[in-house]
């Protein structure tokens, strides 16, 4: 008697499973076919950092105060500054990011004191896989200049 009920319950389980599978079969696919389709990256996406483009053009907003360097948990940021030739303060001469040790936490951006626009921001780049190690060492000052040249 027990076996009979088990067979019956087994059949019921089987047909419930099959009916759900058939229903799902006709639903639209949920996977993104990656190289042909891409997802929109959300506005707050935490990619690697870069120097924010100065809205007025010219040099970066960074004042080389090294707040980000101190805030970084993995010590992957190196900032060097030189005295400005025109007026007080410093301007950034070297901004290196070792992306290999970066944990993408965003504490550097929170520490940035520049107002109203912070001097560093997240990028939305995600295609950063590489077979060599040298992609990880990023020269952000050079990247800033490249992006600026591209814009103008």
């Amino acid at each position, binding site marked *: 008697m027990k076996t009979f009920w088990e067979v019956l*319950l087994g059949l019921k*389980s089987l047909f419930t499973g099959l009916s759900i599978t058939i229903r799902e079969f006709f639903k639209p696919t949920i996977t993104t076919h990656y190289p042909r389709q891409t997802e929109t990256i959300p506005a707050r996406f935490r990619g690697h950092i870069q120097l924010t483009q100065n809205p007025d053009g010219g040099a970066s907003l960074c004042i080389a105060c090294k707040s980000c360097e101190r805030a970084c948990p993995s010590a992957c940021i190196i900032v060097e500054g030189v005295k400005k030739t025109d007026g007080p303060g410093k301007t950034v001469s070297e901004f290196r990011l070792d992306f290999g040790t970066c*944990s993408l936490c965003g504490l550097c951006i929170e520490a940035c004191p520049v107002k109203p626009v912070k001097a560093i921001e997240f990028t939305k780049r995600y295609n950063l896989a590489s077979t060599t190690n040298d992609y990880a060492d990023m020269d952000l000052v050079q990247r800033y200049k490249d992006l600026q040249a591209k814009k103008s």
Partner: protein
Amino acid sequence: MKALNLIPVGDPADETFTLNLGPQHPATHGVLRVKLVMDGEYITSAQPVIGYIHRMHEKMGENRTWAQYLPNTSRVDYLSAMTYTHAFVGVVERALKIEVPQRAEYIRVITSELNRIASHLVGWGAWVMDLGGFTPILYAFDDREKILDLLEGICGSRLTFCYYRFGGLCNDVDEAFVSGTKAFVPYMRERMKMYKRLVTDNIILRKRLEGIGPVSAEMCRRYGACGPVLRGSGVAYDVRKAEPYSVYKDFDFDIPHYPQGDSMARYLVRMDEIEQSLRIIEQAIAKLPDGPTMGKAPRIVKLPVGDFCYATECARGRLLVRVTSDGKENPYRVRLRTPCFTNLSLFEEASKGMLLADAIAFMGSLDLVIPDIDR
């Protein structure tokens, strides 16, 4: 040696052999190694060997400032990162007596509960996959994807959120998150009904789980097991009710518990917990107050000299963060009392005399995350 009498074949001393389960076995969900002494298909002793993914999270705490430890908290139990950050942020707030705005507390509860659902979905899907059912994990990851999309929209990261700060949150939620969460709750309830029909009522699953790996409340107490393992043994202990932190006492929810103590009981506890989390999210979204999301926190965090601790209920059980401060910028000691470590401890005793295939089902019921064991 009493358990050996259960084994129906000859003299175990002559017949046993050693078998390594892991460290790269897919059923251990990570780099956990279990040294099994087998007698045919039966286990005479199962000794977990841990430390393959030891990353010195506790020691790292001593070498960085309080704020710099925040990204680490998401990486201990990567599946329920929010609750871990909550515990560490909570201990600093308790020590410095930082007032957290109501809106921030409500958002913390919503995101923690969303994270708990996501964590249970992964645990559930992977567990059913260990038992031989491949399809449910695909459905589970589809639903989890919806949660991760919501969380990514507000904090920018999908797994290692690092969203809470001392005194509040790193940024406020937007309208898309609120409406997305409101839409997610009824959607998930429908899916839970489907999961019940597809998996929970399935006779194969019931046969694999019912009566497997009995864990008594007394054994849980001896090993310090917590979370769904303890609740599956009939003890209704949940940190959210026992010592309410954040704003959990404002919400109406039950603690699911089942007295059977077998793997099926732990399975049902997790499924019911998803529904309770949905209830909490629904109430919190309805009551979400306006206001700031960041309280007054000092720029350079320095804790007063002393010992502080804070417990949260993470997806796998009770997480306690205990910190010792000597008044400097770095912690003197960070201690994480993690649930997976204690839940794994009872595996050796409970799996004696079990079939190997049942031991895999039993290990899935403990829902282990290996970095959480090794820290």
